[in-house]
């Protein structure tokens, strides 16, 4: 009599270490994984379909709900795509503020990642430290945007408003303090023998394999390939800032951890430069009156401005026919928007290139042949957000 010696177990969808509603079907030979199959879609809200029934400014609010740990980055990617379609120029002040906010958001997303990833692997202490700094960032961003998680602050044509006077001093205080905090995190983990044993040579991906699977972001860079959209196709004045792209060698969980920690330091440098060099000027495009709504004061004074405001809010605007692809380096990888316009005020098709979705597709490759306890380390190291995967 031959009996199957493999055991199938179900991990998730309700499992604390799957970071959302991810379900994994694992086939085990003892403790070794022989087959893994991710099941996704539990959080599917049809964002791509919904956007086709909304005007361009309205569809912006949907992008907040993609990767909810870095909503401002999603706003930025969407706005860049629409602005490319419209072919409008954004003032320098708005570009610098966009960079500043996107980088703060990256630090905050990486902090959330390092906190939960360490918690998954049993190092609970870091959670409290990382969440303290993340809370500071959330408060700083709330000060400017008025929201903690879904700001919709970066608008087509610029920003929703200028920053308050108290914003920059708080950013500067954070930036000066933050490198010391990262040092603190490193004393907890980087040379920690337990941490190293749980992460080195786990879920390794070679550079060729990463390219084959279309992986981008810190996971790709941990394998030694220096592809970062901020350097490869600079957007929003990233070419004005001095920063490096941290690279790993082995492409394992430990290298991904190191890459993300170094990225936080680099992001901190960018925030510092953006805050120091922040030029004066308008916070939204002035030469695009059909895209950027007029200010509150002029709406109160001028009937034409009132009508224009109403038209933009009610009807939106009509970009020329055509298709564009614009992408940014979000905290997870390359986040791209492929927009097709048919000349009406609604996107004909909005395709989102979600970095987490494509990175997650490589998870079976990472964990087959590894121990079942390493699955948690592998999932954590990809840094997935299910809101973005399921859309």
């Amino acid at each position, binding site marked *: 009599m031959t009996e199957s010696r493999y055991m199938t177990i179900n991990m998730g969808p309700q499992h604390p270490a799957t970071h959302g509603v991810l379900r994994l079907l694992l086939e085990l030979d003892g403790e070794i994984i022989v087959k893994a199959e991710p099941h996704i879609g539990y959080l599917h809200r049809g964002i791509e379909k919904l956007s086709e029934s909304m005007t361009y400014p309205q569809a912006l609010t949907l992008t907040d709900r993609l990767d909810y740990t870095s909503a401002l980055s999603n706003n930025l990617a969407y706005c860049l795509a629409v602005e490319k379609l419209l072919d409008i120029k954004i003032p320098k002040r708005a570009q610098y503020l966009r960079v500043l906010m996107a980088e703060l958001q990256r630090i905050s997303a990486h902090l959330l990642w390092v906190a939960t990833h360490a918690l998954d692997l049993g190092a609970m202490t870091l959670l409290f430290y990382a969440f303290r700094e993340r809370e500071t960032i959330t408060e700083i961003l709330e000060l400017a945007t008025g929201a903690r998680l879904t700001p919709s602050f970066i608008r087509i044509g610029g920003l929703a408003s200028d920053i308050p006077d108290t914003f920059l001093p708080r950013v500067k205080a954070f930036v000066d303090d933050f490198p010391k905090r990262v040092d603190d995190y490193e004393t907890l983990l980087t040379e920690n023998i337990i941490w190293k044993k749980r992460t080195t040579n786990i879920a390794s991906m070679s550079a060729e394999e990463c390219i*084959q699977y279309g*992986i981008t972001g810190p996971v790709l860079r941990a394998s030694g390939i220096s592809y970062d959209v901020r350097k490869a196709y600079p957007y929003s004045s990233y070419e004005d800032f001095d920063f490096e792209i941290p690279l790993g060698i082995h492409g394992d969980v430990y290298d991904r951890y190191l890459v993300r920690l170094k990225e936080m330091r680099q992001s901190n440098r960018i925030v510092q430069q953006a805050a120091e060099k922040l030029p004066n000027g308008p916070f939204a495009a002035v030469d695009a009156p059909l895209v950027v709504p007029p200010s509150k004061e002029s709406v109160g004074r001028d009937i034409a401005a009132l009508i224009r405001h109403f038209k933009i809010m009610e009807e939106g605007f009509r970009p020329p026919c055509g298709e564009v692809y614009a992408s940014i380096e979000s905290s997870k990888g390359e986040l791209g928007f492929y927009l097709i316009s048919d000349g009406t005020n609604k996107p004909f098709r909005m395709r989102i290139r979600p970095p987490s979705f494509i990175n997650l597709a490589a998870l079976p490759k990472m964990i087959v042949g590894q121990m079942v306890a390493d699955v948690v380390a592998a999932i954590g190291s990809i840094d997935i957000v299910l809101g973005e995967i399921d859309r």
Partner: protein
Amino acid sequence: MAGNLLKETFPDAVQKIEDFRGETSVTVDAGKIREIMAFLKESEKLCYDLLLDLAGVDFNDCTPRFMIAYMLHSTKFNNKLRIKTTVAEGASLDTVSDIWLAANWMEREVFDMLGIIFNKHPNLIRILLTDDFVGHPLRKDFPVKGRDFDKPVQVCLEEEQ
């Protein structure tokens, strides 16, 4: 440059080369898609080794009805190229998931959302929606609110049965 090289290599298959906002899109014949993709990936002059995205679009009243766009990036030369091809309703397209493993899930999503069949795909099943879902939501004739939105929901309590 990539467009011209493609035109030279596949004179019959390249239908159109467009430039819009600094992006190049090349429309090619669906029948030759595998050869063209393999060429773009392997060619030393182009080396488009990273498949960034694969998007399906439904042009409801056009023939052929569907369009598939492949977003390619070359890590060696640092540039992007978009390859487009058209698929008629009921027709199918060859998979590129053996050329790029990344295409596996992307093609599954296009199948799920638009109902386009990819020949020889290793595992062409729905990915985001449930297996018993009827219809393909990103088709233009699929209502935004869902098919049965205006019909009353029938609730049948266990005691009433």
